């Protein structure tokens, strides 16, 4: 079979300005961070991002000025930072366009896109201001085909008028980028632990780019096909990127890096300190390998390694760091 192996910077270069993109992962796990840093280094502009619960992947892209519009449910690192600092500032300063949904309804929107349907119904959102308020105006929506013509449509079921449902519009992105534990050069993908919504996000995208901790032979992944999650023909590019989600965790590979997350959150709520963070960890490193050196190199990374039987670093210190 043809190999889809691609270098990281070559894969990143495929994404043009103003592209619609979704990234895999959930708050503190499995975001394709090496890919995100390279997008910033390459100076990408005006991206349209779609997600449920992103974390620092979106926050640093927003802070670096790469993002025009987002549709989301949540933007934070949970207990490491209860709101994304650059997200918060971008909204409060009027520097970003956004639309609020919930996690379930964003996932249903990806599911509709993945199934080739125009929308999905749900019983969620009723009575909330996610229905009552709009982040984007009708004019903003109609002027840009990247955004659905309306936020939602509430209706009674045609089968039982007492049943109230909300229809949410499908998402079709130009790109989905997911970071996984194992992939084969053919595009067979294995995700261990929680799958989040990576599969639906990938299948609602025109082009799927997979970054993987480990590249495994095709025949090895074919021995247990029930553990593989994406049709290989839907994947266009596979990049080998060990520690590609740092500072976030990858189950069975490594834990999140509390020290790096603290450095980020200590820096990101101040413009000057954030700029210094970008310089030190993004602009002044030329590659992912240099980034890994900048965050502490092999000594630091070894301390984050996942241990059996847990799949994370059981004795990792997470509070009261020096």
């Amino acid at each position: 079979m043809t190999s889809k192996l691609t270098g990281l910077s070559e894969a990143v270069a495929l994404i043009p300005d103003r592209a619609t993109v979704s990234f895999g992962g959930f708050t503190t796990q499995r975001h394709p961070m090496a890919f995100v840093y390279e997008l910033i280094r390459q100076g990408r502009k005006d991206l349209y991002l779609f997600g449920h619960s992103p974390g620092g992947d979106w926050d640093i892209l927003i802070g670096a000025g790469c993002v025009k519009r987002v549709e989301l449910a949540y933007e934070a690192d949970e207990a490491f930072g209860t709101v994304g600092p650059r997200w918060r500032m971008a909204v409060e300063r009027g520097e970003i366009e956004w639309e609020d949904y919930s996690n379930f309804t964003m996932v249903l929107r990806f599911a509709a896109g993945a199934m080739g349907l125009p929308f999905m119904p749900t019983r969620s959102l009723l009575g909330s201001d996610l229905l009552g308020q709009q982040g984007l105006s009708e004019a903003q929506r109609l002027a840009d085909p990247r955004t659905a013509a309306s936020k939602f449509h509430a209706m009674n079921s045609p089968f039982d008028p007492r049943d109230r449902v909300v229809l949410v519009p499908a998402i079709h992105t130009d790109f989905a980028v997911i970071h996984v534990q194992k992939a084969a050069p053919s595009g067979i993908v294995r995700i261990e632990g929680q799958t989040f919504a990576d599969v639906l996000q990938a299948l609602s995208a025109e082009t799927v780019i997979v970054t993987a901790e480990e590249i495994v032979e095709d025949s090895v992944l074919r021995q247990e096909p029930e553990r593989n999650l994406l049709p290989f023909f839907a994947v266009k590019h596979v990049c080998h990127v060990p520690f590609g989600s740092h500072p976030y965790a990858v189950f069975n590979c490594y834990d999140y890096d509390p020290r790096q997350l603290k450095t980020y959150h200590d820096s990101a709520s101040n413009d000057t300190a954030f700029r210094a963070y970008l310089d030190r960890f993004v602009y002044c490193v030329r590659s992912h390998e240099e980034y890994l050196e900048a965050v502490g190199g092999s000594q630091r990374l070894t301390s984050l390694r996942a241990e059996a039987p847990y799949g994370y670093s059981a004795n990792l210190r997470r509070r009261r760091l020096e």
Partner: protein
Amino acid sequence: MMADARYTLAELMAVSAAREIMDGETVFAGTGLPMLGVMLAQLTHAPNCCIIFEAGTMGSQLAHLPMSVGDPRSLRGAAMAAGLFEVFSYVLQAGRVDVGFLSGAQVDRFGNINSTSIGPDPRHPAVRFSGSGGACDIACLAKRTIIIAKHERRRFPDKVDYITSPGWMEGGDSRARAGLIRGGPSVVVTTMGVMRFHPGTRAIYLASYHPGLSPREVAENTGFALDVEGATETPRPSDEELRILREQVDPERVFLN
């Protein structure tokens, strides 16, 4: 303000939250105090409660406290690992979640919650927060919810600036009239007391005030007229609950401060 130096406010709140969970229930956990509550409940009076995290794990038997619902720690002892679609569709929307935890920046007298933004116009907010995450879904679709909140006057306004998570809406049967087929908040555990909702009007009332406080002090720190009639003192944590909380649930004191 604590009357008893044996425990901290976070410990009292975690124990109060844990006591709301019954054995055998399916519980949707969130980050922070809710995680302390479910883990404590599972290790004490509710060993058969099923802990679910919206990022995709079901039936966790936690060995180490997760710091996020996407934490690999949530997979420990889990009966199943899947994704958000499975958890939200088949478990939550289909009516299989007994109780979910919610929190936010503002809570009003009918238990509506705001975790989106402060200010009259959400498109030009004074302060922006993380947003709903799964909170709106849990508020709409769990059989009941437990709300955790910091008790300050500005955090308990008459009306929230933005309803991220619908509670009892405007009281009475307004929740059902909005089309919501089940659920609603059952309790609000705060830094000052425990509040519940009147069965008919669905308005909030003070059920108990934490040791060291008076009902009047709680009412003074609430932005609407709070019914404190019949409120009693919040039961204190037992030695056994405190021991498990400190030694097994959160020995690193991630949230217990």
